[in-house]
């Protein structure tokens, strides 16, 4: 009963999400697209932070590099072919991950956080200080890529609804892939490494290879999120690689809850909606200008009252209910 409910729930949710733009206004469609892209981005980081225990504060590098790559690789006034533009952009992100990961994974803990941050800052300055991608002002991607073989156009995502569906498909693919991955032996080994790496080495796992692979996979999906973001707006800027961006996605993962994939998704939804609400003059009137204050206070309150993130909330409530019932019976 319970499980059949669960198995039905997922397709139903997906279908509802897919049909949502029929009823929502343009703006909210765009907002959902943004949420989906950030969910994808957060999912990719969850693989590192929540599943492998590698806290990276430089994940924006992959996001940004791939966003730049798709922009630079597309012809200026025609649409690039997805068939190679997207893989190429992702490969750029992965290539950067292989190089920086091999170096960064030699360090641990706080140092790992800082080294990843460093490498992201390096990439940031490359785009900010050189002419490569239009310098600090950024560059435009005029035409969205399309999927074609020869002259035969299979998929064109110019239309906002097709782009919506395309993003949803990417998100579902990522989610499915990562879920499968975490259930597999590879995922089990990552879990082990998360808890006690030394033990895993003693058991016969070459942990470095595992971590590097996880790092590169995370980079690939982070890159996917980045290129979708670039395609969505048609504009890329060095700030896509800024550490604030890494911080934001890390916040999503922590706020949602670590270790579970859907924690990242919930976190992304939660954080973006929070920002949206606090910035809205319709709700907060002229105080919306001070939305950083309300947003900051909200974050503090969330940390204080939800130590396990949003996904830990049901458990927390259950524990509280149990406690109150047990104390009631004790009396």
């Amino acid at each position: 009963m319970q499980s059949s409910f669960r198995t039905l729930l997922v397709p139903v949710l997906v279908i509802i999400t897919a049909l949502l733009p029929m009823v929502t206004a343009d703006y909210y469609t765009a907002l959902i697209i943004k949420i989906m892209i950030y969910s994808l981005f957060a999912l990719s980081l969850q693989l590192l932070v929540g599943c492998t225990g590698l806290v990276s504060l430089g994940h924006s590098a992959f996001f940004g590099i791939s966003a730049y790559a798709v922009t630079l690789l597309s012809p200026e006034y025609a649409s690039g072919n997805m068939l190679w533009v997207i893989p190429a952009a992702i490969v750029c992100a992965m290539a950067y991950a292989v190089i920086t990961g091999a170096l960064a994974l030699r360090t641990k803990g706080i140092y790992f956080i800082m080294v990843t941050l460093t490498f992201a800052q390096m990439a940031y300055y490359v785009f900010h200080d050189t002419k490569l991608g239009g310098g600090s002002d950024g560059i435009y991607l005029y035409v969205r890529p399309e999927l074609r073989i020869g002259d035969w156009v299979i998929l064109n995502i110019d239309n906002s609804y097709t782009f919506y569906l395309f993003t949803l498909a990417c998100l579902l693919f990522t989610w499915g892939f990562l879920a499968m991955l975490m259930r597999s032996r590879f995922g089990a080994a990552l879990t082990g490494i998360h808890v006690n790496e030394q033990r895993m080495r003693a058991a016969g796992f070459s942990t470095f290879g595992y971590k590097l692979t996880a790092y590169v996979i995370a980079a690939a999906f982070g890159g996917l999120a980045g290129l979708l973001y670039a395609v969505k707006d048609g504009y890329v800027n060095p700030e896509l690689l800024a550490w604030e961006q890494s911080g934001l996605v890390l916040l999503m993962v922590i706020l949602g809850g670590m270790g579970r994939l859907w924690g990242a998704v919930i976190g992304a939804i939660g954080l973006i909606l929070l920002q949206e609400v606090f910035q809205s003059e319709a709700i907060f009137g002229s105080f919306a200008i001070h939305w950083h204050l309300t947003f900051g206070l909200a974050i503090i309150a969330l940390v204080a009252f939800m130590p396990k993130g949003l996904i830990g909330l049901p458990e927390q409530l259950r524990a509280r209910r149990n406690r109150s019932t047990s104390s009631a019976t004790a009396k």
Partner: protein
Amino acid sequence: EVKVGFMLPYSGTFAQLGEAIENGFKLYVQEQGGKLAGQEITYFRVDDESNPSKGPDNANRLIKRDQVDILVGTVHSGVAMALAKAATDSDTTLIIPNAGAGAITGPLCSKNVFRSSFSNWQPGYAMGAAAAEKGHKTAVTISWNYAAGKESTDGFKESFEKAGGKVVKHLTLPFPQVEFQPLLTEIAATKPDVVYTFFAGGGAVKFVQDYAAAGLRKDIELVGAGFLTDGTLKAQGESAQGLLTTLHYADGLNTERDNAFRENYKKNFPKLPPDVYAVQGYDAAQMLDAGLKAVGGDVAKKDQMRDAIRNATIDSPRGKFTLSKSGNPVQDMYLREVKGEDNVPVKVAVKALADPSVGCKMN
């Protein structure tokens, strides 16, 4: 009813400028009795945080959520790029009240995008001419390593070298670092006749102070784009006295138009000075007014309205200006000198200076 959307920085380094622009805009509308061309104006605001990566989303808040007719924004060049893209994609009219990125009225120019301020190139070019005229032969330029700085110093170099001078060194430091001492030492070692700088906000304050503290003022003249001393004079204090800068506005132009504006502004916003940002906001409203009048307040007639703006002559507090085909003001650039807490005009450095708008297909 006409919906105007402000996408301006309300937090962070540029918050003050955002406020001034909004004030200026509202002042003009208020002077017209709260209506432009008979239309009630309603305002929407979004804080752009001066963060280009959030630019497209913030722009969409105004364009798609609030469905504004006119966009006004912003200060930061990168954000303005994002805004221009979003405005062009959705065919919304955009008036940029500050950001000077050359590309927006250059290669990326578009029929729906206007600027009530300047291009980064303009003050630089004006100062190059003025510095050469003062007899300087060698110059060093210094700015943050970012696009605006490069455009501005390029403008300086162009006119300075055209007049026979030589820019011997172009110094940069990473944005937004403010440790200038090594570069000041480098300047002291180079000993040029003049130093041209492009800094704004906190960086401008610190640079001017450090430059004076390093004792360079007595031997090497410091000049800059106007932002060096606009809105920063109180903080710079003594060290800014006598600095020469170029900009399209100055304190105490002493024209009837300007005096009226300043008085009215002070009355309405006693806490803030009537500075160049307020003027830019004010003129953005004037440009909109010109457009709306031409279509009798019907914002749906976009093309007609835009043509009217493009052909208008704006009676700005800074003096009358027109717009180039690419939408950038063709305006007088003033050479100003810092006296007390004012940038008082010395003379017009270049009359009716138009941005070359290289790469714009509308030229």
